[in-house]
């Protein structure tokens, strides 16, 4: 993955850029979201855009998409000036965008989500559902994913939602495909497949803009890299001629030390014990323990059942058999209230929907879990609420103008810190963190890691679900790998290597069937199907 791009662009000057933006600016009231947005995407190139959160990448994407119109600067599409007033106009110009957060219609079918607004027509100009379904199925075959085009989008995992976004973008047959962190929710196999598709589109002459916080992806996929910092264009590089440290330095404007600073912590008594947990159709036979001060990573592909196990432990979802106990005392199943009372905190994967009340202030969000201790005679004192919030925000270095601002105004990293603060304020024994750094930039990522490591140092047991291997390997004392609803490997920090984790996660032969020959393996697999 970490090799340089196979085809370095030969000569950039010779081709008309599919899209070129120079010196674009955009302000929202007093906030300068973009000071100098500059990027050039050639036909047949994969161009990566990197920068910390708040660097202006998303604003730049929204200008390309026609969501925002720039206040200044030059914008050319195929060499001609472009002034998009809305999304339809940018689409008509051949620009297709996959946004960071999936934007599906939960009540519509998967097929309709892909084709809404341009459904294939059949007799009498009416929509042909059969044709729509067939085309959606074709797209999924290309992407190699088994998603039923007829199911409604509600309840799809974030990874599947992201795949549908990708299918939607591909089906537009765009000249320029913009992917704003398409891989944030995907893991291993799915990312690889997306890249195969991206490379195929490049062969066909499409220009692709790829935004990611994962360097191995940026370096594995892109031909050129544009770096942004603080709303400004910094530099563009040929991927083959640049290194990760050089890029990181340009992104943050300073040298970064270790990205994943897990400090050694004293390992104490068993805090969480999960015994024979089963949920039909989701996971089977889940046994594990976590001790005080220990970080245990739950690794595996998206859809392996990691989040589901965490949700069952926290009592959100019911399970069919097995038990969960904290400090020796069994927890009532299906009762988050009981779980919180026993000292479990849960930082969910989808923090915007499940972790935060976006419209409430930072202070309210931090103190949500504290309502009882802050209240006197059932009435919460505003002063005490602010004091508690102030205290926690400072400890976690949440960057906000005011405690009274809605939490939706914060960057992703700072939102995550608010979620962490919310749970830390309850003084938990066990903290479950699901994809703690999804969509968070490098600088804040390291801060989140340092925070989690600190917490472990203070004797909190941590269960971390993560799809990012470097995060798993860098942070975890122990790695549990799940595959298709089962734990297929348990690796100590010393034993955990990227290869071993991936093998166990994909259920490949080396991990599961060490002693089988090829023939035996194929019979085994047949029988399993």
């Amino acid at each position, binding site marked *: 993955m970490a090799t340089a791009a196979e085809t370095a662009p030969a000569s950039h000057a010779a081709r008309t850029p599919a899209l070129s933006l120079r010196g674009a600016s955009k302000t929202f009231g007093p906030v300068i979201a973009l000071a100098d947005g500059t990027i050039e995407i050639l036909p047949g190139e994969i161009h990566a855009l990197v920068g910390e959160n708040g660097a202006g990448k998303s604003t730049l994407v929204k200008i390309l998409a026609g969501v925002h119109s720039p206040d200044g600067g030059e914008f050319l599409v195929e060499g001609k000036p472009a002034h998009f007033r809305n999304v339809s106009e940018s689409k008509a110009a051949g620009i297709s965008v996959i946004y960071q957060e999936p934007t599906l219609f939960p009540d519509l079918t998967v097929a309709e989500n892909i084709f809404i607004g341009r459904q294939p027509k059949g007799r009498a100009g009416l*929509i042909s559902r059969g044709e729509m*379904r067939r085309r959606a199925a074709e797209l999924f075959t290309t992407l190699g994913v088994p998603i*039923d085009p007829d199911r409604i989008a509600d309840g799809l995992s974030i990874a599947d939602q992201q795949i549908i976004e990708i299918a939607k973008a591909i089906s537009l047959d765009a000249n320029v495909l913009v992917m704003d962190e398409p891989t944030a929710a995907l893991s291993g*196999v799915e990312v690889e497949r997306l890249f195969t598709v991206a490379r195929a589109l490049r062969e066909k002459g499409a220009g692709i803009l790829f935004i990611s916080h994962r360097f191995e992806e940026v370096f594995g996929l892109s031909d050129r890299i544009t770096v942004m910092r603080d709303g400004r264009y910094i530099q563009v590089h040929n991927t083959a001629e640049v290194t990760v440290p050089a890029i990181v330095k340009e992104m943050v404007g300073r040298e970064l030390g270790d990205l994943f600073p897990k400090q050694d912590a004293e390992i104490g008594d068993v805090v969480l014990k999960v015994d024979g947990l089963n949920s039909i159709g*989701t996971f089977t036979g889940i046994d594990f323990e976590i001790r005080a001060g220990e970080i245990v990573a739950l690794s595996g592909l998206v859809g392996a059942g990691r989040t589901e196990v965490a949700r069952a432990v926290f009592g959100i979802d019911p399970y069919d058999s097995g038990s969960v106990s904290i400090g020796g005392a069994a927890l009532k199943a299906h009762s988050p209230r009981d779980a919180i009372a026993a000292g479990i905190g849960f930082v969910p994967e989808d923090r915007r929907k499940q972790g935060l009340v976006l419209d409430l202030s930072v202070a309210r969000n931090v103190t949500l879990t504290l309502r009882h201790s802050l209240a006197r005679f059932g009435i919460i004192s505003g002063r005490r609420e602010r004091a508690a919030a102030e205290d926690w925000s400072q400890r976690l270095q949440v960057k906000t103008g005011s405690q009274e601002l809605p939490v939706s105004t914060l960057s992703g990293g700072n939102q995550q810190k608010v979620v962490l603060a919310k749970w830390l304020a309850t003084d938990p024994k066990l903290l479950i963190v699901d994809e703690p750094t999804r969509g968070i930039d490098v600088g804040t990522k390291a801060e989140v890691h340092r925070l989690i490591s600190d917490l472990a140092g203070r004797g909190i047991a941590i269960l971390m679900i993560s799809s990012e291997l470097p995060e798993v390997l860098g942070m975890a004392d122990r790695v549990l790998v799940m595959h298709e609803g089962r734990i297929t490997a348990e690796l100590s920090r010393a034993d955990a290597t990227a290869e071993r984790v991936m093998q166990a996660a994909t259920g490949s032969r080396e991990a599961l069937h060490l002693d089988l020959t090829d023939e035996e393996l194929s019979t085994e697999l047949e029988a399993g199907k």
Partner: protein
Amino acid sequence: MSTVTHAPAVPRSNALKRFFTAREIPVAGALIALILVTYIINPRFLSPQSTKDLMLNATIMVILAVAQALVIITRNVDLSVGAILGLVAFGTGTVFDMFPTIPLVLVFVIGMIFGGLLGSINGMLVTSAKVPALVITLGTLYIFRGVLSSWAGSKQFFSGDNPKAFGNLSVDTLIGIPIITIIAVVITVAVAMFMSSVRSGRDLYAIGSEPDAARLFGIPVGGRVLSAFIACGALTGLAGVLYASRYNSVGALTGSGIELDVVAAVVVGGVAIFGGSGTVAGAAIGAVLLSTITGALTATRVDKFWQQAIVGVLILAAIIIDRVVSLRRARKLRVNEAKDV
């Protein structure tokens, strides 16, 4: 790399299964059960005259429910329909009063344009003010009703004032079905086709399902919502004209309180109150169900007092059934997908 070899099987849509899992089925079932039970208790319930009355009573509600469903599917609501209906019905009487020889078609056109204009006021306020439609249309409900009160005063138009041919629309039948009922059925079918198979109709579902996503996707959200309100107003206007044909008198109070019955019919018919799902056919069936209950209770000599309570129970039942069905579906999907991988 287990999923590499797993080409997605192209799933065939099972028309029969789809039919029976549709949200309209429980409502239609309840309607059929209601009719059968009432018929067993009192066979005269389905005598030709009584059947015709049932259809006539349902007609106006069906049109109103279809109109309202258009708006509710976009995650809005129009509470002013009772007042719009009253204004158009009274307007129809006024038109006949002034031009007794006016062609009937023209009266319908005027009524629909009048309703459409009133709907466009709602639509423009909702799309420009960014205040929930519930509040806006509650306001326009009172405004429209106020306008009607001062316009009508104590004046009433009686069916005798209208041309005979106009009143006959609600009397004459074609193969046993009243003309105005046929109009309602045609409208239901046309709107249902539009909503299921025309792109702009599907856009309405998308908007109701997730307005932000619709905007990002380039769907002209404001324009579509405005059109839905105009269409709702125009169809309500049509219902207003038919109201003047069907009922004996129209005046300042015509259509009072009907908006809640309409919303109830739409919800009972399986349209989600927060938009995005349900069908106009379902809304129409919901309207027939609610209006048939009244007839059924009379036929079985149940105290009329119970009627409203029963409607309330039906609304709750509709919501609970819907919820249970979707939870079960979600669980089934989960189990199936687990087997698939």
